[in-house]
């Protein structure tokens, strides 16, 4: 049964229709990539799913229950977490603090104000795991704002997955990375999303084809094709609308 499902999803800002009826079903544990031209509506789609703003019509189902229209924090508590295209972390806080804040709710601490955060063994442990997973042990106490771009992107992913969400949305995680960093990032993503449902937006075809089980192509707010990497590569419309000659 599909973990994340979009039904006739629409979004318009004023007169501009950005998402024009998207249907999409991502089975549990699938790594699903969304590609498409700039301005096609990929990030908007993520914003709708994660609750940044409500859809104009249509609905989003998470594990069979309707989440569209709910505030982002509730959606996140239901096990869906997303990263941002423009790095969006807590710049003045240490890397470790970034992660610890990200795990607190999932461990059920909510708005606790009678226990010291430092004393929460499980939180500390989980944070350390993630810290190690994204390979930033050396920068534990560094204010996130001072990390190199690549490291900030890594932390972005860390913060996103720390809460142990079942469904992960990543928006262009490798944008602006050199080949070397990109490969590291892909490797990281593969590891952290092991056994989870992943929805990823990328412009780097290397990453997309390397990572995705299935791919959807979004063009001007509509999914023009969904299929395996092979199918997509073959699809003439996709070449014409998006890939150009490169993928050949």
């Amino acid at each position, binding site marked *: 049964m599909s973990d994340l499902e979009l039904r006739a999803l629409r979004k318009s800002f004023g007169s*501009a229709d950005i998402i024009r009826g998207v249907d999409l079903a991502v089975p549990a544990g699938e790594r699903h990539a969304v590609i498409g031209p*700039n301005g096609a509506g990929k990030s908007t789609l993520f914003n709708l799913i994660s609750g940044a703003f409500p859809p104009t019509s249509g609905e989003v189902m998470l594990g069979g229950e309707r989440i569209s229209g709910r505030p982002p924090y509730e959606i996140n508590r239901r096990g869906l977490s997303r990263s941002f295209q423009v790095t969006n972390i807590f710049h003045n806080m240490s890397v470790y603090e970034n992660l610890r804040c990200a795990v607190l709710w999932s461990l059920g601490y909510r708005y606790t104000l009678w226990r010291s955060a430092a004393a929460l063994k499980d939180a500390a442990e989980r944070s350390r795991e993630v810290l190690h997973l994204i390979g930033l042990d050396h920068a534990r106490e560094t204010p996130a704002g001072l990390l*190199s*771009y690549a490291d900030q992107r890594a932390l972005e992913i860390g913060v996103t997955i720390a809460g142990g969400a079942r469904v992960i949305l990543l928006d262009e995680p490798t944008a*602006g990375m050199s*080949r*070397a960093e990109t490969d590291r990032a892909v490797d990281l993503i593969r590891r952290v999303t092991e056994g989870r449902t992943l929805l990823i937006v990328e*412009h780097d075809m290397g990453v997309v084809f390397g990572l995705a089980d299935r791919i959807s192509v979004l063009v001007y707010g509509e999914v023009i094709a969904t299929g395996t990497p092979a199918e997509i590569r073959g699809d003439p419309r996709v070449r014409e609308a998006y890939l150009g000659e490169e993928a050949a």
Partner: protein
Amino acid sequence: MLEIRDLHAYYGKSHILQGVDLDVGAGEVVSLLGRNGVGRSTLVKAVMGEVPPRGAIRFKGHWIAGLPNHRIARLGLGYVPEHRDVFPYLTVRQNLQLGVKNPRRPGKWRLEQMLDMFPNLARRADSPAGVLSGGEKQMLTICRTLMGDPDLMMIDEPTEGLAPLIVRQVGDLIAEIARAGVAILLVEQKLSIALDISHRVYVMGHGRIVFEGTPAELRANDGVRREWLEV
């Protein structure tokens, strides 16, 4: 046109640029390659004075190290920073208008022209730039700088987050800008374009220039490529 000699730059205590020499001739397209975090952005930032530079920087015969950035810009040095600094509350059109240095003496690049070149921007001309898609922001920043018609443009990661098709477009645009006689210092990740459009390339590693030559020479030189660019 732009001469950089023994340039050093620091972030607090960490010594990022460790004596960089670099030249860009008039009308020349030069690419600056290297892995993440080696200091390419820092280099261009230092030129614009966003990071306090130590060393000698000369542009069109003026010593510009330490000048306020608006003076540098007015000398004809354009800069497109990484990470898309659009003015979120202004409309796309207003963003472009601010690119113009002096409304009374508009340069060779016209607003309409820009909008034609990028239909995405045309469509959003009057919505606040903050809502633009990642790629659209990228295009906007390039066009905006172009509006001030610079003689040399330093572009940091122009193709970051662009769809393959657009990447080509941007490549073409840069080529066209160059054809219009504007020199270009290009900070890039994507070897493909960089090597296609540039006359000379520098490769940077750990705050130093580790290779200088023509694209052809770089293609030939596996050693450098393997050590400083690929895994």
